[in-house]
């Protein structure tokens, strides 16, 4: 099964986004990696690396990120992670992308590519009109 990691500057935001996504997609493996690892606002490559290794069962991992350093730390975490699986950052809004990605990932036929594609579909969403 494809694993998901949600990276946010706030650990509460990352946990909350995982809660919302998990409610829609029972059975998806989704792990929050928020905050700087020391209780503050920020992102942490070792924390993201741990989350990747937690959700990785060999099929691949898709990462959703919020802003700025989240992308750089996620890239670095991918380089540091001890895995043979594909690990990819989706270029998508973090909440809507996580939700879409989790729904797709709960499908047993999902691949890294299909989860990234569904997550990135969320870029086109309009909320009003």
């Amino acid at each position, binding site marked *: 099964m494809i694993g998901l990691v949600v990276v946010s500057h706030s650990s509460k935001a990352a946990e909350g986004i995982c809660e919302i996504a998990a409610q829609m997609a029972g059975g998806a493996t989704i792990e929050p990696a928020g905050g*700087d690892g020391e209780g*503050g606002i920020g992102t*942490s490559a070792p924390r993201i690396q741990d989350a990747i290794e937690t959700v990785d069962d060999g099929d691949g991992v898709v990462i959703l990120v919020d802003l700025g350093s989240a992308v750089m730390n996620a890239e670095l975490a991918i380089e*540091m992670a001890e895995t043979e699986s594909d690990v990819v950052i989706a270029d998508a809004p973090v909440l809507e992308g996580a939700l879409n990605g989790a729904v797709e990932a709960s499908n047993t036929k999902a691949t890294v590519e299909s989860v990234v594609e569904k997550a990135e579909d969320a870029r086109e969403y309009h909320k009003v009109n």
Partner: protein
Amino acid sequence: MSDEEQREAVLMAIDRVATRMQDEKSHLTDLDSAIGDADHGANLARGFTAAAEAVEGSEDDVDEIVKKIGVTLISKVGGASGPLYGGSIMSASQTLSEEGLTAETSIAFAEAYLEKVLDRGGARVGSKTMVDALTPAVHTYKKSIEVDELPPVTALAKAVAAAERGVAFTVPIRAEKGRASFLGWRSVGHQDPGATSTLFIMQELLATAEKFTEGETDVDALAPSEPDVDPDDDGGDE
């Protein structure tokens, strides 16, 4: 330098950088509070101090020591500075793995570090970032050794002078990357904290190199070691 001297030099360098970052903590934080999130001084001081402690008394080869410095920075420095400083040091440490620290490998290290910063951060010269100090410094260092055949410490002194000009260049330009870019035109007139801390690191590397190697260090980055042809000279004999 012998293996022992190389190790001693790297350990002295990280100690000096850690001390400098502690000394400059409030200065860097002031710069960052003007155009960023006011955490640069505290982040780098915490990270480099932890890195110096992590390798204190190490008996490892220099590439392993440098790698450990990078890894410690990644885990202890928050925000984008962790990947940019720590990740780039970790990645560039591979250039020292076979021959240790030589004039050639120091150029390779500098180039690998710059390349990683460019790749990771996506900034270019003129984005008002550390790249504005780092790029002229790395180019000047490489040219001074490879073309002008200057001693590495002299090349490093020229690189520091080039980085100083790069830091000054960040003041009157508009930020394109990082938090400062959200300020748009209001970022103009402020010195970039990342370029500034990059200069501080280089100054400490130079101070360390002066203790271990010999060469002129009172040099100007803009002065060619072999003067270019005088543009006013028409080549005539009269």
